[in-house]
């Protein structure tokens, strides 16, 4: 089915209503998720501030998931020279960066009451920061090469290299963290997850994911149309 959507024209027609549907679904999930977040019990250590977790953790999950999507799309774009894959990768990057920034900011906001500082160099935050830099590097590379096709291929290579590097970064930061901080008393996700904490988390994760899909498909539509417009312009200029 995936390859059936490979043709940009076909993709446009099949997914024409997807953004609206997904957007509506996302709105519902967000409503439910927010309600569940506020009705979930307080954490015995952190009180009400634990609710930031419901915004922060799904954002962090999405930041990683979108990078995996970026990597996968880049692979297809590079190896199969797939135009739609290239468009999909380009569209995913800013969204991934946004989720990562959201994770960093909410993590910092959560950290303030928890650790007393706006920033902590613990393993997770540091490796998420490096992930954010990966996104920035990808977007910068893409933007700095004038030829669109060349920019896409170079950025795809970078995305794949980053994909290999990501586990290494995670591992190295974990290792560094254990070197610099003896066992932490405070853990980021609090005590063991009970059902009434898990439910809002999963619902919010679902909401974020559907939101991502809605925005992503919208961006792909926009990019396909923009490329078509550019091609038509070029044709018209050629005839002039």
């Amino acid at each position, binding site marked *: 089915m995936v390859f059936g959507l490979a043709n940009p024209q076909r993709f446009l027609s099949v997914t024409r209503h997807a953004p609206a549907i997904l957007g509506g679904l996302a709105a519902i999930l967000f409503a439910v998720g927010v309600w569940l977040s506020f009705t979930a019990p307080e954490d015995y250590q952190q009180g009400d501030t634990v609710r930031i977790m419901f915004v922060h953790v799904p954002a962090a999950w999405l930041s990683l998931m979108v990078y995996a999507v970026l990597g996968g799309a880049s692979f297809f774009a590079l190896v199969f020279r797939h135009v739609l894959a290239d468009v999909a990768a380009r569209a995913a990057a800013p969204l991934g960066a946004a989720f990562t920034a959201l994770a960093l900011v909410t993590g910092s906001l959560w950290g303030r009451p928890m650790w007393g500082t706006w920033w902590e160099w613990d393993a997770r935050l540091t490796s998420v920061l490096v992930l954010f830099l990966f996104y920035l590097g990808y977007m910068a590379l893409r933007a700095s090469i004038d*030829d669109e096709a060349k920019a896409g291929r170079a950025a795809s290579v970078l995305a794949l290299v980053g994909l290999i590097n990501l586990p290494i970064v995670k591992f190295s930061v974990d290792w560094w963290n254990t070197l610099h901080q003896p066992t932490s008393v405070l853990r980021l996700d609090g005590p063991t997850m009970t059902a009434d904490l898990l439910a809002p988390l999963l619902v919010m994760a679902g909401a974020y994911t559907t939101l991502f899909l809605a925005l992503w498909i919208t961006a792909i539509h926009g990019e396909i149309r923009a490329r078509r417009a550019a*091609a038509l312009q*070029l044709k018209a200029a050629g005839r002039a």
Partner: protein
Amino acid sequence: MEKDGPGVIARLLVENLAVARGGRTLFSGLSFALEAGHAVALTGPNGSGKTSLLRAIAGLLRPEGGAVAFDGPEGPLDAEEARSRGLHLLGHQDGLKPARAAGDEMAFQARWTGGDAAGLARAAETLELKPLLALETRKLSAGQRRRLALARLVASPRPLWLLDEPLAPLDARWRERLGDLMRAHLDGGGLVVAAVHDPLPIAAREVSL
């Protein structure tokens, strides 16, 4: 030239080639075959794709459509091997680093393409480069730089010569000498594809873009 091996190109086949640059198709449906001992002169206005065609044959540029194939005396050759051992591409630029000695640059280009000391001596002799070898390349004139770049054609024998406006910076005497070199190359079983504005000093089939 070596008589057998992955780089011995006896025939160049261009089939239905289409090349696009920056979203614009430069040409399409281009087909021709070139046998050993023969030459093709590529003509056409500026921007018509002569350089791109040469680069597509060399494998540096990926065509929009069609194919380029190489045949050896025994049968088809693997394109990548044929390209890395069987051809010389001489572009507009000379590939000479300005602050390096001409002799060093010539030696590198020749050795990189498989030439040896004997070949280098032959090249220096044929192209009258001896007085220039100690100079830094930025001190050479355009014609001298072109002769320096041509050295690898003489020093490292390879069957297929892809030349992009080879005569441009040369004076009349050297144009004639280059013609002699090309004729000798063709007589030895070589192939030449040259993009030109002026007529080539050798007999060549014309392909117009």
